[in-house]
């Protein structure tokens, strides 16, 4: 069985811990199963599978790799660059940044202010906090994956992202989640999909403070 811990830590600008909340993540969504399905069934470009992306637009997704023998495919990616930095995604035109690049902030851990209850068919955070330094925005760091480890009967790894508040005022993070891409080989194109969403109960991040969000997926036999 796979479960995940969700940890929210509020830090001051020097990195000192001000608040820590840990809870069980309850909320891998249909999007996660859909991307796993595309991978297991090896859905090909001639008969792609339709998933609604984070803009609630139906997108055709397949698991066909790039031409040549490399067979790169970025479906299920969570690790991402910070902010507006581009993330190249494998696919037919993997070297064409105009169609196969997503901003790093749109992949990996996300934060928002929505409080609507989670459902399996959620397609995005209810009210996503944008990357930036303006009112109501947080600066998205890179989304890191670290520390895969096993000790019978358990195994786990860590996904984490830092969010810096340079907005000039407090921001309350009510929801967190994970976005991951899926691609269409023939289009060619890449889109982001919601694969997990959780409510936090509210964490107030004051101006200049940093929020560290950590998911720890774990399996136990």
């Amino acid at each position, binding site marked *: 069985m796979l479960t995940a811990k969700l940890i929210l830590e509020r830090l001051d600008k020097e990195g000192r811990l001000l608040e820590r909340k840990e809870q069980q993540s309850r909320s891998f969504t249909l999007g996660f*199963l859909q991307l796993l399905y595309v991978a297991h069934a090896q859905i090909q470009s001639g008969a792609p599978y339709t998933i609604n992306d984070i803009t609630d637009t139906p997108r055709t997704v397949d698991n066909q790799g790039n031409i040549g023998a490399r067979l790169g495919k970025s479906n299920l990616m969570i690790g991402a660059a910070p902010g507006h930095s581009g993330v190249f995604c494998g696919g037919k035109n993997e070297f064409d940044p105009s169609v196969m690049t997503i901003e790093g902030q749109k992949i990996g851990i996300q934060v928002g202010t929505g409080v609507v209850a989670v459902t399996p068919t959620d397609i995005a955070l209810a009210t996503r906090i944008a990357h930036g330094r303006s009112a109501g925005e947080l600066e998205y760091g890179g989304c890191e994956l670290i520390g895969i480890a096993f000790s019978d009967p358990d195994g786990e790894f860590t996904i984490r992202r830092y969010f810096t508040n340079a907005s000039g005022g407090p921001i309350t993070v009510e929801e967190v989640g994970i976005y991951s891409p899926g691609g269409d080989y023939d289009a060619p194109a890449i889109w982001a999909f919601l694969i997990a969403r959780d409510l936090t109960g509210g964490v107030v991040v004051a101006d200049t403070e940093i929020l560290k969000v950590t998911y720890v997926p774990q399996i136990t036999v």
Partner: protein
Amino acid sequence: MPKAQIKLKPKLAVIKEEKIHHLLVPGEVGAILELTVKDKDGKVTDHRVMRSKSFVRQFLELLWIQTYQIPEVAPYSVRDTANALQDICESAYTFAANGGIGVVTHGIIVGEGTTAPTIDDYHIETLIDHDAAPPTAGDLQYGAVTFGAPASDATTSQFTITRNFANASGGAITVNEVALYVKAYLYNLSYYFMTIRDVIGGGIAVPDGQTLTVNYRLQAVI
């Protein structure tokens, strides 16, 4: 003696909401294991539904490789079903379980082993091989792996992986263990890995002339 034939046609199907079994608790991602034995007339002679216990370490390692986008230039080593560590990177093949008729390298696999699973298991304990020239004592005819498209109800999302195993061996066979094997890749080379292994308490008997259908329903519950 008439030979058993695999008659069910591969198909993709959306699972109706009322057919989603609820054996997982909120926050869990896992699998439901459903076993059905039918005689040659299609009559169900045995049917069981249970929680799959056992994602093994290769599942988490392949998830790590794909979510991290481990590159070809810095691959990650994973133990394959032949007990060899293989360098693997992200690819379009990661998690491929679409084994065809008679293929025992990937897809749902069955065996006779009874040893309880551990997280470090890397292959099925005692493989029941594909019966390529029936009747072969102790072998089952592996059908092609098929998939049920994702669906959800108010709490549970799932998709289904299915395989039929026809017994034309001339004798009864007891299946004690079930596993999921998948493919992964590094430039020009494919390798195979076990991601799930379950042991069935008491085993499930498949008499000669009957067919075992195994469904793994991968689920996420909120």
